[in-house]
């Protein structure tokens, strides 16, 4: 039996929920923004009217208002969006138990054996009636084309990519519409004269591998609607691939010492979470966002897996010069707006210990014992019961761990074109 896969995408999710609660805003351009006070004042989501006026996700509020003078901004209420995401998921569960969420606002559903279009229409109708939200649903025999379908026509539409007509409909689409083809990959593909999904499907996988490495053949199979894997059932927990923290700082940073202070807090938080999961990681990556909102990541491989904050901190400090040249930043009038630290290539702690003759193992065990002791003190008496001296140098920087930590989008090698973390566009 041929699989029937749906991909459901809630249109302008955050903005739609806000418009539901503010009926007076429905006919106006609306942008959902982070808190300006906490310097998260960027556009997180926008409705169709704002989009038409040129408002883009990630823009600063002032920039969005300049493009769209009548723009109504509302502060994001994540708890509310979570409630709606759960309610929509409960609706999906009436139709199938094979649901694979993709962020808060998207999900794949396996409804093999059913009439895909009929189920898609019923889901859209139910979501609209019960939650007041619209969804676009793609129907295909694989996850990749189903996702393509949900992006094909918006809002509130069902698109079916099934049968012999599929290549005729799908192949002329720009390659950037394909899942996991972000702007950078699309640019590189264009240099190889691969502009449409059809071009990518026809390209030699060996050639793609030579240019893009192991994701080359994967992109090629995605273009042909192969791969993407089955829809994993709800409740299936993916193995943790990386652990990271990032933070938007209360003020722009201009000195490496300030970045060091922030990394000391981030490394402690990441190391504590690694220990919580019983994991250690070999790859350490730092991520930096400048005050112009451009960002970059740099990484290195440790000689042995680590879950210890001093080792992560040392790695972060050694990576920083690749991303941050204080003189160049000063010349360009830039500062560091956000910093992140991520550890990947994880392995269970028990497997990682490499016996050595030089007593380093004993030294690391001692360091780990110290860290575990700090974890325990914090669990019992609160985070601020024990802190690094570096955190005391600038009280505003030392304050953030409890309030502003957020998960760093784990990118690995792939660009997730349609998503930035779980943030809807």
């Amino acid at each position: 039996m041929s699989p029937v896969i749906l991909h459901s995408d809630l249109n302008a999710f955050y903005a739609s929920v806000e418009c539901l609660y503010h009926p007076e805003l429905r006919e106006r351009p609306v942008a959902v923004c982070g808190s300006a006070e906490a310097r998260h004042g960027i556009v997180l989501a926008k409705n169709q009217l704002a989009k038409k006026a040129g408002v883009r996700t990630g823009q600063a509020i002032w920039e969005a208002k300049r493009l769209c003078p009548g723009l109504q901004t509302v502060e994001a209420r994540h708890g509310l969006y979570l409630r709606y995401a759960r309610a929509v998921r409960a609706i999906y569960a009436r139709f199938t138990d094979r649901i694979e969420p993709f962020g808060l606002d998207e999900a794949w559903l396996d409804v093999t054996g059913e009439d895909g279009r009929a189920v898609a229409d019923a889901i859209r109708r139910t979501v609209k009636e019960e939650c007041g939200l619209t969804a676009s649903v793609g129907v295909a025999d694989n996850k990749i084309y189903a996702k393509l379908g949900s992006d094909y026509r918006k809002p509130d539409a069902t698109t079916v990519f099934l049968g012999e007509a599929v290549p005729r409909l799908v192949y002329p689409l720009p390659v950037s519409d394909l899942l996991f083809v972000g702007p950078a990959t699309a640019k590189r593909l264009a240099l190889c004269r691969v502009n449409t999904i059809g071009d990518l499907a026809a390209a030699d996988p060996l050639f793609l591998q030579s240019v893009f490495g192991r994701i080359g053949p994967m992109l090629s199979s995605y273009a042909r609607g192969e791969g993407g894997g089955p829809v994993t059932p709800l409740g299936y927990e993916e193995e943790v691939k990386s652990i990271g923290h990032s933070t938007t700082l209360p003020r722009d940073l201009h000195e490496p010492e300030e970045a060091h202070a922030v990394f000391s807090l981030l490394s402690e938080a990441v190391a504590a979470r690694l220990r919580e999961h019983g994991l250690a990681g070999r790859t350490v990556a730092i991520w930096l966002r400048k005050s112009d909102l451009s960002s970059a990541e740099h990484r290195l491989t440790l000689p042995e897996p680590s879950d210890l904050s001093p080792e992560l901190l040392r790695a972060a400090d050694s990576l920083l010069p690749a991303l941050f040249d204080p003189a160049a930043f000063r010349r360009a009038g830039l500062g560091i707006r956000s910093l992140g630290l991520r550890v990947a290539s994880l392995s269970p702690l028990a497997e990682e210990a490499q016996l050595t003759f030089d007593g380093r193992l004993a030294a690391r065990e001692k360091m780990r014992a110290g860290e575990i002791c700090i974890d325990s003190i914090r669990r019992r008496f609160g985070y601020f019961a024990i802190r690094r001296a570096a955190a005391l140098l600038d009280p505003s920087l030392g304050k953030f761990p409890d309030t502003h930590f957020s998960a760093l989008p784990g990118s690995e090698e792939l660009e997730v074109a349609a998503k930035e973390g779980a943030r809807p566009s």
Partner: protein
Amino acid sequence: MKGSEKESFRKTFVAATVSFDPEGNITPLRVIWRDGRRFAVDRVLESRPAASLKAGGSGMRYTCRFGNAVTYLFYEDGRWFVEEKAPAVPGKEKDSDV
């Protein structure tokens, strides 16, 4: 009201007397208006999850008959609300952030 004017509604939270059956199902019995008046629910005609597109929000929607009138009563996040007709405010609306 002029034909061209769009009817507007506001979300008005109300106090309610309800009953729970052994399965945990809730049935509203009485609504207490802000001025203290009590309106007995004669009959619940339907109950289902629904969005309130008029007043904003969503929850369990009870279609209730109060005498000759049929009104939606919503239960959202532990609170009850109705879609109350709001008188149109003359003059230009102010553009402001919410």
